[in-house]
């Protein structure tokens, strides 16, 4: 019987491999045609990207044919990758064309209706699992399993009935019964079948796949959702924004290539000497192009600096100032609080939780509350200051003037006010990181330091701080990146966002305003890439400093 089956099975495998070779040959030809279509049919630089990807896939497919013919395991790997990507692409395009993605909102609403029935399924699962306790009584175990299965299935069916929309059946049919969509459906099926054919164990054996190679492929398959997600939703948009930064795209029309024009406009500055410090800018710089950025005096001479995009440079200045305020305020107190919370005093666990609460609160809610507290007329902070000064004056007979702070409406204090709020919200998270870092420091070092006569401060300075080096660098880096990207608190707390007089205009807010309010997505993308370079440079410097001086645990 075995001798009869083996040749038949082998023959089927060979047939499948022949079909796969033909399939990949066909794909290679179709791919090359698609390259031509993409290159001639898509405008702008995007055609290079699309045509490039298609060309790579076509060449990979062509390479697969001889490799399969030689029964080379690499042919199987490439074939699986090509078919897998083809299957996913067809599926995604088809779902998009039939409007499945835009209907997800409605699905989410329907999903809520079915949730109670899912509980029934959980009960069924619980009953089924409960049956496993009766391994010594197989009949009883089977009964439990059977009942559990029935309840699970019933729950699932009820759930499906609750969420399903039967009017979707004719809608789906009418959506699919169109030439392009039918072609995608056919592609989806063919790619799926070819993937399955190549994945099968008999084909794998013929292609010389051993266990190690098989496990490697399985590993990549498991990794693929995350990896493809990374490519699609992170790397893809990243590259698209880079491309967009070289165009004048307004988010609606075509992307016309403008080269470095956006970057040139961002960085275009002028510089001139003034005859007097108060000389009008219009007399020395071309104000039809430049706006005055700042003036300075050196060696008795006055100068003026102008920029084509003044707001961009203001946003850089504000962002850097914000970082200089917010980062130390978020890190130094966190280190001190972390030191206290790391002690063995009673109630420390409670306080660790308390300090962490602001970190889990929503930024929007927190910003609105702080905006209210900062209100110059009816805010609690000014109320406390006024009451405090009144009490001090009453008790001492002094006449200390009430400063009547205009926290968010004065250009002198608005950025500081936002930075204080951000620091307040960030301290808790940083504290937890510091506490975790401190708990990793070997206790024996403190014991040795104590024996050597080191006091609390000496221990903190010579043991805790150096050993917290890696944690500190991590905390500094993440806080700095977060500070460079500040947006929500400024957007919500200041009126108008970025005010007063652009004193809180951050780089991300300026990017947002350009992209979404002034119809300049290309320009906004250029700002985003400058911001990326600034953050990247700051991070590299920090890591280099850590490598140079920090203690390696």
């Amino acid at each position: 019987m075995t001798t009869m089956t083996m040749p038949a099975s082998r023959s089927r495998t060979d047939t499948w491999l022949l079909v796969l070779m033909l399939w990949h040959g066909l794909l290679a030809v179709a791919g090359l045609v698609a390259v031509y279509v993409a290159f001639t049919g898509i405008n702008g630089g995007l055609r290079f990207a699309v045509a490039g990807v298609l060309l790579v896939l076509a060449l990979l497919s062509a390479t697969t044919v001889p490799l399969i013919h030689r029964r080379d395991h690499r042919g199987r790997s490439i074939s699986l990758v090509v078919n897998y990507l083809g299957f996913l692409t067809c599926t995604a395009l088809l779902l998009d064309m039939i409007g499945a993605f835009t209907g997800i909102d409605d699905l989410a609403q329907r999903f809520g209706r079915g949730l109670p029935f899912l509980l029934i399924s959980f009960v069924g699962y619980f009953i089924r699992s409960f049956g496993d306790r009766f391994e010594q009584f197989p009949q009883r175990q089977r009964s439990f399993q059977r009942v559990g299965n029935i309840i699970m299935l019933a729950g699932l069916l009820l759930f499906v009935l609750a969420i399903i929309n039967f009017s979707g059946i004719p809608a789906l049919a009418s959506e699919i019964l169109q030439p392009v969509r039918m072609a995608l459906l056919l592609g989806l099926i063919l790619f799926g079948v070819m993937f399955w054919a190549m994945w099968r164990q008999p084909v794998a054996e013929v292609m010389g796949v051993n266990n190690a190679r098989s496990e490697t492929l399985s590993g990549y398959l498991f990794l693929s959702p995350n990896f493809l997600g990374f490519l699609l939703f992170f790397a893809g948009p990243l590259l698209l924004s880079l491309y967009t930064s070289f165009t004048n795209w307004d988010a609606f029309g075509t992307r016309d290539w403008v080269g470095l024009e956006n970057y040139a406009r961002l960085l275009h500055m002028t510089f001139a000497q003034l005859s007097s410090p108060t000389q009008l800018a219009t007399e020395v710089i071309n104000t039809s192009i430049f706006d005055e950025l700042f003036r300075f005096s050196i060696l008795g001479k006055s100068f003026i600096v102008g920029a084509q995009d003044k707001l961009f440079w203001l946003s850089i200045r504000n962002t850097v100032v914000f970082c200089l305020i917010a980062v130390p305020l978020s890190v130094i107190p966190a280190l001190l609080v972390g030191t206290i919370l790391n002690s063995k005093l009673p109630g420390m666990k409670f306080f660790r939780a308390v300090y962490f609460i602001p970190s889990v609160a929503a930024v929007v809610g927190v910003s609105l509350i702080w905006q209210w507290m900062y209100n110059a007329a009816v805010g609690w902070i000014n109320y406390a200051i006024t009451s405090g000064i009144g009490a001090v004056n009453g008790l001492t007979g002094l006449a200390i003037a009430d400063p009547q702070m205009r926290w968010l409406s004065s250009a002198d204090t608005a950025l500081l006010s936002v930075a204080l709020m951000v620091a307040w919200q960030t301290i808790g998270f940083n504290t937890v990181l510091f506490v975790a870092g401190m708990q990793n420091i070997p206790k024996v070092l403190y014991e040795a330091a104590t024996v050597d006569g080191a006091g609390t401060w000496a221990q903190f300075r010579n043991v805790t701080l150096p050993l917290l080096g890696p944690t500190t660098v991590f905390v500094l880096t993440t806080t700095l990146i977060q500070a460079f990207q500040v947006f929500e608190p400024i957007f919500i707390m200041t009126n108008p966002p970025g005010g007063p007089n652009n004193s809180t205009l951050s780089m991300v807010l300026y990017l947002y305003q350009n992209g979404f309010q002034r119809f300049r997505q290309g320009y906004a993308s250029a700002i985003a890439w400058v911001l990326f370079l600034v953050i990247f440079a700051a991070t590299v410097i920090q890591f280099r400093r850590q490598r140079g001086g920090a203690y390696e645990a």
Partner: protein
Amino acid sequence: MNRRLIFVFSSLLLVASMLLSACAPAATPAPAAPAATEAPAATEAPAVEQPTEAPAMEEVALRWRTRPDNQEEADVYASISDELDAKLEGITLSYEPGGSESSSYQDVLKTEIGAGTAPDVFWIPGSDVGDFAKRGLILNLADQASMTDGFNIDDFYAGPMAALTHNPDTNAEGADSGALWGLPRDVSTFVLYLNNDLLAEAGATDPRELAAKGEWTWDAFLETAQKVRALGSDIYGYGANAWWGPYGTWMNAAGGGFYNADQTACNLNSPESLAGLQFEQDIYQVHDVAVPYGEDSEPPYRAGKVAMFQNGRWATPGTRTVEFDWDVVELPQGPAGDAGNWQFWGAYAVNANTAHPEEAWKLAQALTEADVQAKISSMGANIPSRVSQEAIDAFLTFTPPANNQAFINGLQDNAVAEGPLWAGSWPDFVSVMDARVSALMTGQETIDQFAATICDEAGKAFSQ
């Protein structure tokens, strides 16, 4: 039963049901035509006879959106949507309220337009109409309007209709301009919300009496504000929020304005505009009678610490809950002889990519019918955009405030219609103007410094 079989069966069933739910007609937004790759010419006639995907008698699903000011208003819009759904034959409506504390209505809408998922009909502020029209994001409805029996642009206030019929290619306006970018949802004007208790405590003459006698001028306003301010360091005579609306009225009242007569250049440095700004700066910096510029004035007004709070009709529903005696009065008259009020408005526009332009036009008309506007006005948030004594009479009955007439007087007092900047970029212009006025009002700049460079800076918006 085999576990694997159960798993496979369940998974397939679940996926299939989700797919069907996601593809069901109710869930699917009105199919839009492929996104436009280039902005069509402004005068390009819309495809009136554009074939729709569905047969004529088949039900057409339309989505529409407007920004309600509160939940009650959102509920009214939802009920109006249901009523129109029943009334409009062959059209199924779906209303979506837009905007929230953390998401700007306009920004979300623009993103959706870019993604091709925006509703068929949506409301936009008057100042945005130009940008939307120039970029081909909204449909020119002139041809549909010309074929609609009984449609007359004179049924609406002239200010909004001038902007909505502006043809950017010919600069023509009016019924024969060949352009119609939408229909106005409502109009509104500024008034001063009064805290009568504070005014009485300060011994100030009632502004309503002064207005009735024609004596409500800038000087009278300042005197009133100073009397109230003298009540205490945390009591203010005047409050307004920091945006172009309030400071624009001072400029308008002095005979100035943002642009020149044909709206092709900056006018912020004209003597009249500067006179208005100088008066406002003095309110903050010299007389110190106002809630600090840039602070939200609504909380202190609601807390009973501001005597005169400048705001529009949209603030009425919220003010009805305050615990002091309140009413409204017209803005004071400036040197130019009027109050320089704005005529705020927003319009229902039709998505340029809608698959159903004719039905969308019907919906825009239905949403601006007198009875629909009356229902929304009853919430107290706005004034009907139709010029009709009946609509005004209905509006006047929705009290408090007792002096609703102040809003109507604002409309008739040479109000300047909030207008799109056809010759430039409004977002660019307003961002420069807001920041510089903020510097002026907070004392960072003098009026001379402002005048020296403001139009060099803001004028660049006209080349955008």
